[in-house]
C-alpha cells in the first residue's frame, strides 16, 4: 500500500538524517525514515540524502538492496524522488570520484571542481550560493533578492541533457545546482540547512502529487 502525503527519507547509513528530519518537523511536513526495499517501493515520495564519497554511497545502497527498489519505484511507479547533495549525484550514471555505476535515473555524470588558476577558491566548496534559474522547476520557479542555499561538495553534476538543469550556481565556474527530469529531482545544496529558502523548497517537494 502506498503512503500518500508522507515524505520517506532514505536512511542508508551515509547521511545526516537528523537535520533533514528536524527540518521537516519544523516545516510541519509529515516525514518518516525508511531503510528497506519494501518501504522504498511503497513510498509516496522519496528523499535520498547523502554525504561522503560516491562509491561509499552506492555500496551502502547496494548492501541494503535499495538500488533495484529505487529504480523500480521511480521508473515504474513514477514515485517523485529528491536527491540531496551526494544523493543528487547518485541519481546520475557515474562520477569521476568513483568506479561504481550510479542509479542512472538521469543522464548525468559528476566531475571534480576544476577551478581557474588564481581564483583564490578552495575545494571543497563550502558556503552559500545564489541559484541562477535556467528554467522554472517544480521546486523553484523564481529567485528572490536574497534567495540562497548552502553548498558543501567537491564534485558537481554535468547533465547530458541541458534541459534537465533547473538552476546553476557559481563557484569559480558555473555548475549544476538543481535538476529535474520529470519525477526525478535533485539539489546539490542542503535545503535542510538553508533557512527559509530551503524550507520553501522542502514544502514544495512535499506538495508534489504522489
Amino acid at each position: 500500500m502506498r503512503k500518500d502525503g508522507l515524505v520517506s527519507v532514505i536512511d542508508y547509513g551515509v547521511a545526516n538524517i537528523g537535520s533533514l528530519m528536524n527540518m521537516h518537523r519544523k516545516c510541519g511536513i509529515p516525514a518518516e525514515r525508511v531503510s528497506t526495499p519494501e518501504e522504498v517501493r511503497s513510498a509516496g515520495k522519496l528523499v535520498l540524502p547523502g554525504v561522503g564519497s560516491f562509491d561509499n554511497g552506492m555500496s551502502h545502497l547496494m548492501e541494503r538492496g535499495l538500488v533495484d527498489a529505487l529504480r523500480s519505484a521511480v521508473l515504474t511507479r513514477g514515485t517523485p524522488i529528491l536527491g540531496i547533495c551526494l544523493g543528487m549525484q547518485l541519481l546520475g550514471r557515474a562520477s569521476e570520484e568513483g568506479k561504481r555505476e550510479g542509479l542512472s535515473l538521469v543522464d548525468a555524470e559528476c566531475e571534480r571542481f576544476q577551478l581557474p588558476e588564481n581564483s583564490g577558491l578552495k575545494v571543497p566548496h563550502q558556503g552559500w550560493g545564489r541559484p541562477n534559474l535556467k528554467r522554472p522547476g517544480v521546486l523553484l520557479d523564481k529567485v528572490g533578492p536574497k534567495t540562497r542555499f548552502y553548498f558543501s561538495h567537491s564534485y558537481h553534476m554535468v547533465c547530458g541533457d541541458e534541459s534537465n538543469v533547473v538552476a546553476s550556481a557559481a563557484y569559480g565556474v558555473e555548475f549544476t545546482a538543481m535538476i529535474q527530469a520529470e519525477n526525478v529531482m535533485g539539489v546539490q545544496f542542503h535545503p535542510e540547512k538553508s533557512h527559509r529558502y530551503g524550507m520553501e523548497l522542502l514544502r514544495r517537494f512535499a506538495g508534489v502529487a504522489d
Partner: protein
Amino acid sequence: MKPRVIPSLLLRNDGLVKTVRYEDARYIGDPINAVRIFNEKEVDEMTFLDISATTKSSGPNFELMERIASEAFMPFAYGGGITEIEQVRKLFTLGVEKIVMNTVLSHNPELVTQVAEVAGSSSVVVSIDVRKKLLSGYRTFVRSGQVNTGRHPVEVAQEMQERGAGEILLNSIDNEGAMEGYDLDLVELVSQAVDIPVIASGGAGRNEHFRQAVDRGASAVAAGSMFVYHGKLRAVLITYPDYDDLEDLFG
C-alpha cells in the same frame, strides 16, 4: 562568492559564555535563545565549542546538541570533548553538520581520518589554537589553550589536511576577545600552506576585520564577542551584520 561569516559560540555546561584570551568566561545567556535569534538573522553557519567538555572529561553534551540541532536552520559545527568515533556518529545522528576537533588530535590524530570516512572531509573541522611566543614564534596549544604542543601551526595544518580534514578553524589565542582584528600574518601563513579552507578566528570587532582576513587568504571568518556584545561596555546583545552589508563588504 561571499565568504561565510560564522558566529563562534562558547558553551560551558548548559550556558553560553564568552572569554578573553581563553580566560575569564562570562555568562552570556541561553544557547537555544541565541540560535533562534541567529535563525532570524539568517546567519551563514554557527560553531559551538564546549570549553568545559575536555577539561571535565565529560564528553559532548548530547542533550544540548540535540536541542540546538532541532532549532538550527543553518549548518552548524560542534567541538569539545570528542575522543572517539562513536561520539561523532551520535552527533551526526542528532543533526550536527560538522565536527570540530582539537585536543584529541595531539594523541589520536587518526580520528580525523575516521570521521572523514564516516561523513566526508567537508564535515571535519580541525581547530588549531595558536599563541605567538616571544622566542619560538607561533605555537599550537591544546586543552583550551593550556598545553603547548611545541608544534608550528603550519605543520599541524598540513598534517591534518593530509589526514582528511576539510577545514581548518584557525584561532589566535592572543587576539581572542580583544575585538581589535585577526592575527593577519597567521591567517596568511596557514592559508597559503594548505589547499583546504581556513576559517580565521580570534579578534574580530568590526566588519572590516572580516575583509582583512579574507584579503589575506581566509575562506571564511568566525567571530564571538562581536556577535554577542554591544558597545564599549560590552552589554550582551546577540547581533549579526545585514546580508546586504556583507555583500557590499566582500563585493
